[in-house]
């Protein structure tokens, strides 16, 4: 065949050439030109349209089929090669895989928890994105998820909702109730949620069995005691028997007819508290629900739903996102008309339901995730460093492969495959680690006594995707740079030069990586310092109570079945029984537990105090029996405590806390003898106690608080505080026995030492300290490892030089100092690089620390000292090696 004249390339040939881009570069380089030429040749032979079409079809299909095969073949080849290389360095490979696994695993674990509480919709309802909760002004300001509304407000919202907008209400709290079936003698506890009949239709939940509540029960007139069971409760309590529908269940003494069972995957709208039983809102007094409300001159003994002065409901609406503005407008108008003043609400997404855990832990979790990412970055830097170092060692191998014709892209691909394989192995190990670590995290954060977490941090698709992205980024960060450097080998010089010269070239990127590691470590160590100091502050905070030797008992006299007029007699009986128990010094009843603020009442008038415009004087009001202050350990700082002689028929008296006295009376001592009250100032202040913080939230400062005699206020006490002379845990059984002997009708909801409550409250801080410490140790360890590696290489490289200097009479101590100085220099550079990040990071955690400014000098300085110490320590070993160099040996090496 004669030589073909060169032709101008046709459009067809250009398209074919473009298609060849689908092949791996190596294959294209080898055969691309020939393939294109063959195609063009055949194209010229094919004249008929049909033949050309057929040719195109074959060419395109051929490429689409063959190109992926070539890719797969190459990847497989690279993987096999990579596996061989990694197996040759088993120890190094294991170290890298474990380091990365820890980094990726920590990220996946933290993310899985974040996913469970803040991203995933746990509701198990259709179209959760259409659900919103009604929130407004001060609830928003105080970070609460939903506003508290009254029954009449809910009625108005329901009646004025635009077409297609569903409105449902539910009690703010999930109550613990006692249930008994017809053929049982003992009661068993269950969790109960009061909901409006629209609750199920609005959420889009249909019963598995039976029905839910008829809509007309939204009006106060519907008083039929009916209940819907959750699937889990139905299984647990009734063995999943379908006969349960129509049967009777006594709830807190009232007989309810079970009318339905909820679907399997619906457990209510509170993430941490699965609901067992739903009953209509109208059943509030029937189930004796009396918790979690804000009130203003209400009568608690009458049913709550019709009363405009009791705010005890959360409202959820279902509205298509594009109609949210319309709905908000309609709700604002109707609520403002009802209240006679301007009210503006917002609708907040409710797809994820309510969660106290989310409120408490979202910010810490994000901070934790950032830390986990930092640790991973440090780990990646280490891996990059190791790979760089190894790439230097492999320069000869790479140069040989290049000399034999392997192209740069091919080598780059091969080297990158090695790091990808490392990351894949690490990723698999990480997911195994993340599964258990995520649940452990939830357990530690919630600090549940029995060890069963209230929800699980499942590894779902989103977590897997996150881990995949993290792993991919790890490949990019730890693999791309070393691979691109390694594949940029100058063949001739690499084959000629000795190993020592090659190491010299790796030094500068390795040093940069170490500096970055130190910078990231500084952020982590400073963060840990912040959390440790914050934790110390919380441990040392002046609580204003004496939680040691204090036993707190949760009681519910409401459920005892005692008529209201006989309750006072029962209180006396309970107190004398408990006081008589072994190891008990004193006991006292109170309306509220020591958690934090008690029922907030607004609209107080104070003698001689002129409220500012729009100011509503609001106090936390607690009703207590005499001896309360000495029992819980509150210090009386002026006046007298409450006495037995303060009775319903004597003058109204109160003891206030110091914050209240200071806020409204200037000099707090002058509060004694002054009067305040709701309608008229008819309560005289007889004493002042020092401020106390709530055991449930030690961070919150004391708020203006009032203590009135229980005898002068018809409320139900829910807390029994017991001061013991012995370890409260030892007195616990005796107290329980005394109550069940002398007041057997009083159900005990909980009983624990007050210190246990404090410990639970500190769980968030303890977790932060624990995890950040772990992360810091990991970070500093990894950074130290990197620093050590870099210095060791530097020493190895400079061995001949050091030998020469020692031979010429240099002092060994100077050589030693030279290496340590190098280490300290690297650390110092890292510190300066890290300081801006410390400032930014401090802002992120400012909401989480207590008693210190976010940019805390002590923490930064401590971190600095730690890093310098680690730097010096990492420098000492290579330095000693350098100083021990025998000049003769060193010089002979060269």
């Amino acid at each position, binding site marked *: 065949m004669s030589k073909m004249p060169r032709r101008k390339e046709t459009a067809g040939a250009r398209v074919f050439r473009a298609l060849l881009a689908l092949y791996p570069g190596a294959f294209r380089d080898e055969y691309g030109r020939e393939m294109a030429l*063959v195609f063009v040749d055949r194209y010229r032979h094919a004249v008929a349209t049909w033949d050309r079409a057929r040719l195109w079809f074959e060419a395109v299909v*051929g490429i689409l089929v*063959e190109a992926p095969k070539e890719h797969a073949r190459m990847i497989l080849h690279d993987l096999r090669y990579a596996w061989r290389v990694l197996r040759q360095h088993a120890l190094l490979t294991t170290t890298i895989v474990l380091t990365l696994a820890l980094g990726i695993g920590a990220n996946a674990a933290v993310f899985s928890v974040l996913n469970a509480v803040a991203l995933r919709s746990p509701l198990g309802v259709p179209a959760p994105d259409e659900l919103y909760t009604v929130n407004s002004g001060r609830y928003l300001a105080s970070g609460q998820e939903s506003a508290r509304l009254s029954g009449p407000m809910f009625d108005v919202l329901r009646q004025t909702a635009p077409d297609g907008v569903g409105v449902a209400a539910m009690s703010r709290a999930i109550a613990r109730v006692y249930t008994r079936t017809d053929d049982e003698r003992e009661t068993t506890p269950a969790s109960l949620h009061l909901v409006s009949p629209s609750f199920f239709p609005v959420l889009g939940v249909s019963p598995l069995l039976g029905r839910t509540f008829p809509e007309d029960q939204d009006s106060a007139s519907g008083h039929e005691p009916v209940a819907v069971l959750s699937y889990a409760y139905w299984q647990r309590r009734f063995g999943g028997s379908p006969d349960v529908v129509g049967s009777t269940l006594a709830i807190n003494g009232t007989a309810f007819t079970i009318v339905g069972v909820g679907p399997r995957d619906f457990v209510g709208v509170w993430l941490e508290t699965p609901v067992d039983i739903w009953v209509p809102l109208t059943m509030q007094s029937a189930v004796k629900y009396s918790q979690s409300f804000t009130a203003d001159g209400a009568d608690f003994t009458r049913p709550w739903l019709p009363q405009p002065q009791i705010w005890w409901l959360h409202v959820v609406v279902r509205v298509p996102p594009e109609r949210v503005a319309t709905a908000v407008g309609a709700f604002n108008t109707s609520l403002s008309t009802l209240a006679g003043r301007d009210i503006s609400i917002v609708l907040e997404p409710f797809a994820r339901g309510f969660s106290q855990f989310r409120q408490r832990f979202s910010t810490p979790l994000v901070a934790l995730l950032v830390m986990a990412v930092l640790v991973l970055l440090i780990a990646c830097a280490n891996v990059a460093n190791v790979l760089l170092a190894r790439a230097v060692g492999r320069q000869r191998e790479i140069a040989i492969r290049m000399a034999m014709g392997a192209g740069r892209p091919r080598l780059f691909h091969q080297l990158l495959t090695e790091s990808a394989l490392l990351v894949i192995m690490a990723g698999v190990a990480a997911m195994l680690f993340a599964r258990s670590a995520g649940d452990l995290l939830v357990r530690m954060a919630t600090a549940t006594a029995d060890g069963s977490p209230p929800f699980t941090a499942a590894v779902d698709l989103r977590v897997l995707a996150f881990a995949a992205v993290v792993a991919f980024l790890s490949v990019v960060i730890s693999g791309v740079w070393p691979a691109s450097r390694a594949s940029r080998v100058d063949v001739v010089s690499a084959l000629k030069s000795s190993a020592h010269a090659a190491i010299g070239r790796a030094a500068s990127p390795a040093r940069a990586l170490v500096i970055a590691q130190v910078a990231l470590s500084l952020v982590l160590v400073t963060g840990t310092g912040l959390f440790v100091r914050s934790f110390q502050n919380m441990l040392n905070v002046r609580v204003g109570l004496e939680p040691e030797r204090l036993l707190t008992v949760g009681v519910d006299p409401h459920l005892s079945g005692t008529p209201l007029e006989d309750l006072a007699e029962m209180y006396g009986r309970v107190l004398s029984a408990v006081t008589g128990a072994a190891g008990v010094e004193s006991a006292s009843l109170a309306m509220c537990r020591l958690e934090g603020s008690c029922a907030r009442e607004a609209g107080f008038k104070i003698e001689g105090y002129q409220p500012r415009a729009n100011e509503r004087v609001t106090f936390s009001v607690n009703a207590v029996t005499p001896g309360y202050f000495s029992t819980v350990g509150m210090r009386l700082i002026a006046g007298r405590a409450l006495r037995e002689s303060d009775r319903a028929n004597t003058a109204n008296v109160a003891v206030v806390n110091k914050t209240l006295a200071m806020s409204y009376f200037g000099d707090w001592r002058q509060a004694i003898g002054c009067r305040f009250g709701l309608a008229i100032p008819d309560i005289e202040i007889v004493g002042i106690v020092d401020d106390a913080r709530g055991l449930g939230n030690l961070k919150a400062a004391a708020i203006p608080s009032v203590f009135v005699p229980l005898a002068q206020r018809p409320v139900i006490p829910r807390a029994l505080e017991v001061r013991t002379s012995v370890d409260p845990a030892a007195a616990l059984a005796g107290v329980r026995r005394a109550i069940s002997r002398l007041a057997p009708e009083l159900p005990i909801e909980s009983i624990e030492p007050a210190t246990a409550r404090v410990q639970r409250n500190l769980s968030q801080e303890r977790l932060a300290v624990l995890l950040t410490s772990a992360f810091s140790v990991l970070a500093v360890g990894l950074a130290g490892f990197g620093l050590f590696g870099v210095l060791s290489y530097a020493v190895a490289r400079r061995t001949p030089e050091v030998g020469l200097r020692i031979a010429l009479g240099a002092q060994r101590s100077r050589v030693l100092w030279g290496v340590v100085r190098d280490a300290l220099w690297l650390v110092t550079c890292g510190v300066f690089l890290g300081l801006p990040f410390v400032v930014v990071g401090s802002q992120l955690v400012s909401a989480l620390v207590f008693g210190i400014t976010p940019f805390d000098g002590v923490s930064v300085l401590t971190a600095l000292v730690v890093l310098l110490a680690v730097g010096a320590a990492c420098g000492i070993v290579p330095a000693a090696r350098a100083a021990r160099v025998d000049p003769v040996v060193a010089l002979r090496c060269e």
Partner: protein
Amino acid sequence: MLDVLERTDGALRLSPSSLYASIRRMLEQGLIEELAERPDPEHDDERRRYYRLTRLGRAVATAEARRLERLLADARATGLLPRRT
């Protein structure tokens, strides 16, 4: 490629991609090898690359042909194909 098409009566159509994929596979398996020297420029074609069978390649091709031959003989013996006249 056209040669293959003709020899198989159009039953085996090789596209450029399948052709070079087979060449690459055979090279990898050591059945063929590429020739370094090219013929006289007179008879050369720049598109062409020259391969020849290796000893292994020839052995494999012979073995395959033998196998097919036996298969054919069996087919004829059992009357699956008409006996050769």
